């Protein structure tokens, strides 16, 4: 499964990242294999994916998110930052 397929607010562990320049950028920012991330949201119309890693937000282009393979965590342990629901799910 890739990052696009992760549901909002669910956690996952990065299994592989793309090779080449974008992979290097991801690594430099700390987005590397074995890291646990939490998907915050995906912007509509093929917009970027926002995710949370060690309490910091990152945005990754749609095309790159599709190339980041992850493994979902069935029952995510208590995340470092608790997310409160601001609006009903339907918005």
């Amino acid at each position: 499964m890739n990052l696009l397929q992760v549901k909002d607010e669910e956690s996952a562990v990065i299994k592989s990242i793309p090779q080449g320049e974008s992979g290097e950028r991801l690594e430099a920012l700390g987005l590397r294999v074995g890291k646990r991330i939490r998907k915050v949201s995906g912007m509509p119309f093929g917009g970027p994916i926002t995710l949370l890693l060690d309490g910091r937000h990152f945005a990754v282009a749609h095309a790159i998110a599709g190339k980041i393979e992850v493994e979902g965590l069935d029952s995510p342990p208590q995340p470092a930052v608790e997310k409160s629901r601001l609006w009903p799910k339907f918005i």
Partner: protein
Amino acid sequence: MSCRDCSLCKVRGNKCPSISQDCGRVLLMGNPNVGKSVFFSRLTGTHALSSNYPGTTVGFTEGTMRYGGKTARLIDVPGAYTLDPTNEAEMIARRILNDGADVVILVIDATALERNLVMAMQVLEHGIPVVIALNMVDEARHRGILIDIPKLEEELGVPIVPTVAVTGQGLSDLIAKMEEAKISHLQPMSKEVRWQVIGEVITKVQTVTHRHHTAMDRIEDVSAHPVLGGIMGFLVLILGFTAIRFVGEGIITHVTDPIFENLWMPVLEKLNTMLGEGPVRNILIGTLIDGEIDLEQSLGVLSTGLYVEFGMVLPYIIAFYSGLSFLEDFGYLPRLAVVFDALLHKFGIHGYAIIPTLLGFGCNVPGILGTRVLESERERFIAATLISVGIPCVSIQAMLSATLGEFGMIYVAAVYGILFCVWLVLGRIMHLTLKGYSPELIVEIPPYRMPSMKAWLNKLWFRIKDFLYEATPLVLLGIFLVNILETIGVMEKVAKALSPIFEGFLGLPSATAVPIVMGVFRKDIAMGLLIPLELSASQTLIAVVVLAMTFPCIATFIILWKELGTKRMLMSSGIMITAALLTGGLMNLFFKIIL
């Protein structure tokens, strides 16, 4: 290095305080957005632009600082995530480090220790004396992150000082500790080993506890929401531009207009009587309208020249940069990049390009300089061309209401609408036709922070000063040249030569050629030149749009040339002129059909 080679002294006319001794070289390094620029302005006492946005300081700034009774050059190295360069800023950072230094001040963000350690370790492995400033310790504590500093010192083998740069806390300790800077015991290692070491260090020194959600976190959540984030983005822009208009108009009505009318006009009138008829009066004061000096239309260097610059444009510049600098320091701009990525992606530029584009609304010059944050040449070309064609700078916007306001706000709105459509279409066309590669958006989104008032005012002052230095000579020179060229009849010839294009294709009287050609100097004077021509509403609209789109003003043109190189600049100019004429022609056709 010897004092003789120190460029700073050359700049300051040999007034280096350490003329008798050798200058030291100190580097200020760290990831983007860790508060490096704040350190720089605090350590040197001079001011550098500091902001809450990754990558605004490509290129580097330097100043002088004193530590341990010595004077040293302090170099603000561009923020880098790694020294295995993945972009231009990181390449420059590596190059500056390779040139060597007496001491490196390494700024580390305590709230993101693990990520910051990547570049930190690379610097430590370089075998150079380092002292670490562990910055934002207050924010880390607030987030429930505890760092065992003595243990971290032991692991890294260099002194570490906890700091809060925005308040100045820990700065004097840092300067004192610079003399104890050490070469770390860490040896060069492979990427894999380094990550392993970082993992071990983190488990030894850092504990993270739970913390509560703050109000800022809630706004952060809203801005990342797929629907609300988008709505918020547009609201911020609309509110921002409304506020700019409101503040700009307010300054004009309550400050600059009274100053010009009550203080400057009497001086001009006296000068007018003193000079009497003749060419000197024509250049300095200009033509009298109904026997009186008209600040907007007389077109003298001292009348219209000063009024356009200080009375009409400067108020908007102040309003614009207050708003932009606030959003920048607050940390909203990277979020705007996320909101706009999907749209800009269709143009072959990623969401980051929204930041130079917004800067362009102030003045195209910083806008085009700002395209340096984009990674590939193709992206920079597309973004720079789009800014010079479709983004009206404050000068243009301020003059819009002067020329079109009398016909109704709908005409002013039409200009924005048309420019936006051109921006969309041209962006799409360039993406489909230009060869090359455009990288994708990968960006850290810094947490929201309340900007420090001092840093914000500093930045505002520097931006306004830059504008005045750039624009004033050009406005005055432009008006001066128009008057000279007018007197010797060159303008008439130009107008005649271009009349087929203007009369036939654009449906404008040939005299309109003069202001449009003059637009090369300053768009604001050019628009002012349109007023006396008494064009109809639709003609003014066409002229204004063509003027806004064609050739940028001379300052933008020079920057475009410097940034893109001759070939690409010519290509960009070609695109601009073609797009402007096509749009003008289409508008003319449209008005012919409906009227």
